[in-house]
């Protein structure tokens, strides 16, 4: 009997300690207050977290099944500069629909909290098919069993599981709303780059960078035919032709080094071009020197005069309605559609200079989905320079600055207002002034 009493006491105490811990640490934070279902956006608004769609939920199961979460964590800490690497720190409400959680414990690969929207689906399909095709130094496994045969263009066809997985990945971080517009600005994408003198003869260094980061899509000879290219709807830039979309120089001109620097830093939303803000500034300058060696244009021509972006005119209903008139007058709807969804009558016939189909931008997704950047100034610039190599012309000869701002304001009215990066005059001057 004596035994039993002591033993019961010991067992009882052991269980009580554990029970107390489970209650205090595991259950009390949960029971003690409402379970957070909302997120505070970068603009300070409180918005509800969005549950997973059926497809995303299925993709999450694939993510668990393939063990993605052993190498990719899903929380950004507010320390050690993680918010500059990946995006804003994680909030409780962002996880409202996660059962089980995918926090992870080891970062053998990068954190994926903010992965959604970084690059287009195409990039992920190529990357899951064989990561080393995209990132030569990667140690991520390949997932050939998520593909089934090849289509007429030689592109491996993703299975339902692969499609679901990418849908889930693209959902990650999106509960926080259009945070990326601010992030691109903070991560230096908008600053006016000044070419340091030291990099002028960095071609050899630049080649090293190119062969490690760019070669998968743009190809060893800069012909845009790297092994990844077959996966991509928006084809990689063909460097040997020296034609670039995003410039601050007039239509038909080669870009400045600063223009290339800006594209490399910010990436191109909605395409497979990632933002390379993690690369050192030097490496970015070096690789630009190397990219310029592919085309003789950079030897023979000099960039045209950089266009001037004047301070933004007030975004008033009148300006928007004047913009609507210009939208009709300039026949924007021909390609971008009356409703701005990019489904104009001639949309399906559009080809770029190399004969690849191109889709006119769908304006209803707003600023975070604009290729040239999320600020109104970026749109103004696109109107002023055109996107060389595509059917998008320059309107510099047809619209005066005020009219261009009116048109910017009308285009902005198609998308959600919080997706545009509105800069103060001071910031705009720092980023776009001259």
């Amino acid at each position, binding site marked *: 009997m004596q035994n039993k009493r002591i033993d019961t006491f010991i067992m009882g105490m052991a269980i009580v300690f554990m029970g107390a811990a489970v209650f205090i640490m595991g259950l009390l934070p949960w029971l003690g207050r409402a379970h957070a279902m909302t997120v505070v956006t970068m603009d300070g608004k409180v918005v509800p977290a969005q549950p997973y769609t059926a497809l995303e939920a299925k993709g999450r199961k694939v993510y668990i099944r393939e063990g993605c979460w052993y190498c990719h964590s899903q929380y950004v800490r507010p320390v050690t500069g*993680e918010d500059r690497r990946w995006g804003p720190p994680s909030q409780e409400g962002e996880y409202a629909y996660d059962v089980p959680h995918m926090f992870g414990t080891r970062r053998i690969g990068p954190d994926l909290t903010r992965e959604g929207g970084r690059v287009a689906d195409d990039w992920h399909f190529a990357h899951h098919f064989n990561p080393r095709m995209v990132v030569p130094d990667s140690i991520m496994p390949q997932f050939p069993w998520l593909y089934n045969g090849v289509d007429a263009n030689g592109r491996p066809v993703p299975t339902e599981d692969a499609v679901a997985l990418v849908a889930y990945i693209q959902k990650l971080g999106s509960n926080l709303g259009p945070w990326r517009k601010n992030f691109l600005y903070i991560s230096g994408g908008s600053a006016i780059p000044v070419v340091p003198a030291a990099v002028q003869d960095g071609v050899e260094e630049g080649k090293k960078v190119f062969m490690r980061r760019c070669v998968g899509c743009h190809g060893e000879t800069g012909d845009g035919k790297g092994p990844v290219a077959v996966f991509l709807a928006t084809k990689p830039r063909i460097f040997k032709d020296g034609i670039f979309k995003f410039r601050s120089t007039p239509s038909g001109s080669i870009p400045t080094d600063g223009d290339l620097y800006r594209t490399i830093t910010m990436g191109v939303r909605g395409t497979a071009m990632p933002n390379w803000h993690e690369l050192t500034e030097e490496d970015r300058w070096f690789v630009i020197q190397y990219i310029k060696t592919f085309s003789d244009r950079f030897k023979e021509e000099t960039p045209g005069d950089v266009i001037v972006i004047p301070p933004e005119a007030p975004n008033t209903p009148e300006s928007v309605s004047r913009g609507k008139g210009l939208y009709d007058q300039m026949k924007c709807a021909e390609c971008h559609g009356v409703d701005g969804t990019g489904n104009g009558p001639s949309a399906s016939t559009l080809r770029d200079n190399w004969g690849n189909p191109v889709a006119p931008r769908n304006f209803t997704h707003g600023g975070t989905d604009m290729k040239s950047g999320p600020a109104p100034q970026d749109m103004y610039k696109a109107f002023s320079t055109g996107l060389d190599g595509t059917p998008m012309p320059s309107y510099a000869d047809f619209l005066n600055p005020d009219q261009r701002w009116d048109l910017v304001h009308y285009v902005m009215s198609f998308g959600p207002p919080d997706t545009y990066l509105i800069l103060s005059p001071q910031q705009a001057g720092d980023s776009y002034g001259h």
Partner: protein
Amino acid sequence: MAASHGLLENEPLVNGKLVKQWLFWGILWTMIFPLVGVIVSIKFNYPDWLGRTSWLTWGRIRPMHVNGVIFGAFSTTFFGLVFYMVPKLTGIRMVGEKMGFWCLWLWNIGVVLGSYSLMAGYQKGIEAGDYALWADVPLIIAFIVLTYMVIATIVQRKEKLLYVSLYYTAGAMVWTAINFPIGNILLPYWVPGVNNAALHGLYIHYIVGLWITPAGLALIYFFLPLACKNPLYSHKLSLVGFWSIALFYPFVGIHHYLYSPIPNWTQTIAIVTSMMLIIPVWTVTQNFFGTMMGNWKSLQESFVAKFCIMGSIFYFLGCFQGSTEALRGMQQLTHFTDFVISHSHLTIFGTFVVWTMAGTYYVWPRVTGHALWSKTLATWHFWLIVVSFSTMAGVLTLMGLLQGTMWMDSVEFVDTVVAMKPYWFIRTLSGIGMDIGILLFMINMYMTAVEPSPLPEMEREKGFVPVAAD
């Protein structure tokens, strides 16, 4: 059967056949699951190796390694040793001995099914509870029956003293019988959001802190005094260790997720209790080295003592590392790096699996009735583990500090991965060294069982209890 066979099958307390069978499977799993780890680690340097088959992809066999070492290698061997240790300490045979055989098969089925479920893609997504629920069922049933057997035996014991190993064994069984269903049934399906992470932090640390740690300590408190033929240094001190573990360990789990959106005050409690764990680590270490005092020469003679002491040194290092990496400042640097992997290997393998090896070196000759087949092999086993494992723990710690520093310095992510590749290669080599050691261990144990060289009479002590000095 020859007279030299089945020594303990006729022994009044221990069911030698039961111990032998559990240990047989334990040794086999101790060979297999670390080997899976080597395959996993080779993929760091050769990611396409075995990479085009879905069931051999990194993400599926990594949990097979982790869960296999916990539930296969460590736990199976531990149960084998429990069936030797508990009767000796209680003075009665195990209650429900026959069920022990059934439990062995249930347990093995669980481990095999579980590993299959991971490779086939049915895993739950709960680290250290990854097996599919249907694979957990046999494990949970077996565990509950085993818990009943152990507790019932302890309660009906003849020995008056409740020796510290019994505290730890009973604690480990009861805690885990509660924890296992929480982690495998409640967690993956019911609790949403950051609370899922919080409870998972607790679950995963209950696996290491309320299962592996007390189970391993039960072993060494039993085998170390036997190995060095000294009484335990202090039984009271060992109980201070037990109660401080029981009090502090349940709280520490949240330290896996510092700087996460889990409420900050729970993170703080977890950090404080993690630091308090220095108390049990200190008492345990003091007790082990105190017990060895005056008889260090037993290190030369006894492989049991060798492995006990090796494990104790790794225990001290691993636990100290664990407490420090729970600090916020330290974790900024080390979290998400191989520093954490170094810690988990130092504790799970370097300490607890090594201690089960110590126990096996003691019990296996006694349940087979044969003297150890080869001291040369055992010596090789010992030194291969010492050298390879020290290399592994060292290189992983170093890598963690290096990569953590690179991250803090905003180095591009892939560049930090590239910088780790040579170290990962060294880690693989050290893992292969460890596995060769384990292979020698397995061969040695097999030959001991089949080679009829009888155990010397003097080592056949019966009903021995390691009495404490105070």
